[in-house]
């Protein structure tokens, strides 16, 4: 007996409406040494809250693992609310995450800039203040160059750049810095970060049962949003080097990283093999070195996905010494583990 049409959806699931809950259940069991449940749809690192430390809360819809709950842990976020697939969490789990993260030094929310997320996180922040006296600051991630023109940076949505911004934020909080300094550093990380992606195929939200959008077999879309938002250009599939050149051209036209040190992230959206990501990284490296960009840290893999969407994005974050050290700082989270790195 199947509760859905298997022709539309080939997935390893039970009832589609149990998808989020059952995967959360498994996640908590698998990582019970690192994280704990603090609400029906909220988790926190096992040792949260930490007295005197700024509490870091990241979040968003489900369907993007390792984001967001995979980045809760040591050197990561203190807590994360969990939304339905591709839907912002409601204010209630955000507030539960806030209380779990609150060590008395204020809480920072960071998440991708989407209307639903802003609405729910703002409602939770207001309740945290009025009902619990907790000061909450928000840093929206706005790295997606394709989502709005340069003079409307505030309208840009957040995609893979989430990872760099969250990592810097969490590492800064680990230094026991105060709320204002944590916020200032995190804002700088976001200001320094740009991403452009390319989509090759859609994904299927289980409870919906049909692909979220349609791309023909031989089509790709540059700048396509991770929920199917339209991008800059739709075309036929082409050699990836040309595509990487175009992606980096768009990024460098928006912010010239020439002469700067950067961190590079080549992020897979869920169904693109790591091999292809390394082919992209190789070309990105050639182009960036040719442009006088100094690459100090590189990440290649699946950091923020969209279920089984095929495609990838390239993210650059300009690095100063502080951002470099924060990005390089050790972390042990369920889906991101990093040893303390040597400077370099």
């Amino acid at each position, binding site marked *: 007996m199947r509760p859905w049409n298997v022709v539309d959806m080939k997935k390893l699931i039970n009832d589609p*409406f149990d998808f989020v809950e059952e995967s959360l259940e498994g996640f908590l069991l698998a990582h019970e040494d690192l994280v704990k449940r603090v609400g*029906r749809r909220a988790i926190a690192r096992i040792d949260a809250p930490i007295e005197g430390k700024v509490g870091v809360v990241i979040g968003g*819809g489900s369907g993007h693992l390792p984001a967001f709950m995979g980045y809760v842990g040591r050197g990561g976020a203190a807590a994360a609310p969990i*939304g*339905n*697939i*591709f*839907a*912002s*969490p*409601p*204010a*209630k789990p955000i507030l539960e995450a806030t209380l779990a993260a609150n060590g008395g030094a204020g809480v920072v929310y960071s998440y991708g800039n*989407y*209307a*639903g997320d802003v*609405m*729910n996180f703002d*409602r939770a922040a207001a309740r945290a203040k009025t009902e619990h006296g907790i000061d909450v600051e928000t840093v929206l991630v706005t790295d997606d160059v394709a*989502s709005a023109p340069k003079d409307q940076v505030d309208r840009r*949505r957040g995609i893979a750049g989430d990872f760099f911004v969250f990592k810097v934020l969490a590492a800064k909080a680990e230094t026991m810095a105060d709320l204002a300094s944590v916020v200032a550093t995190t804002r700088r990380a976001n200001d320094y970060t740009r991403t452009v992606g390319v989509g090759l195929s859609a994904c299927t*939200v289980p*409870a*919906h*049962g*049909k692909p*979220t*959008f349609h791309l023909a077999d031989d089509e790709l879309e540059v700048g396509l*949003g991770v*929920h*199917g*938002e*339209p991008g800059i250009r739709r075309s036929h599939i082409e050699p990836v080097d040309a595509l990487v050149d175009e992606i980096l051209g768009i990024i460098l036209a928006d912010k010239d990283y020439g002469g700067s040190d950067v961190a590079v992230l080549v992020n897979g959206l869920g169904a693109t093999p790591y091999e292809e990501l390394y082919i992209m990284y190789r070309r990105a490296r050639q182009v960036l070195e040719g442009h006088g960009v100094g690459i100090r840290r590189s990440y290649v893999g699946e950091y923020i996905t969209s279920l089984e969407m095929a495609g990838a994005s390239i993210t650059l974050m300009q690095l100063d010494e502080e951002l470099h050290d924060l990005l390089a700082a050790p972390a042990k989270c369920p889906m991101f583990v990093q040893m303390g790195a040597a400077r370099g």
Partner: protein
Amino acid sequence: MADIDDAAIERMLRRLAQRIESEKDHLCALDSAVGDGDHGVSMTIGMRGLTRNLDELDSPSAAEAFRAGAEAFADDVGAAIGPILEEVFEAAARTLEEHRDLASTATWAAVFEAIARAAQDTGGARPGDKTLVDAWVPAAAAIRSAADAGADLSAGLAGAAEAAWQGVEETTDLVPRLGRASRLGERARGHPDAGATSASIMIEVMRDELGSPGAAS
């Protein structure tokens, strides 16, 4: 016409939950053309929560029954539609705490007006932005005129439903200004809005369950 009591409101809301779930795929399809295709799913999750909350209440008043919906959308749904529907149900609940004559057209005109305001205040949408506001605002105006003209509830709700569907029709040619749908720009033109459609379904269920004589037998 027949009396409408608290139990009729609960029955109407349960019927609404069933109706929305049966329209899930249709609402998702509409939303796929305009947004990210999850409207039917979000509405179904909220409506399942409403049913669950109603199951836990013993003979809820009309206000309590609507508040069960507010709590479900607040706790279970998220996205932009969660807070907006939370405030829509809450606006109805608050109005029905003051207006206890459930068979009066004026009561429901007040409910519709409160909902139309709440939908605008919470999401920041105005008429013409291709949202549920484009169904609630004309529906509220229609039922208010009916109340002022002394029409009975059956006629008032029928007029409201007609105005709401007319509003849905008019969203077809609009381009969204807010939310994730606004990113689609011109690509969204030519399709009716999913949120306005689910709002009209809600109004239609009210018409069918509360407006027809004998519905609350």
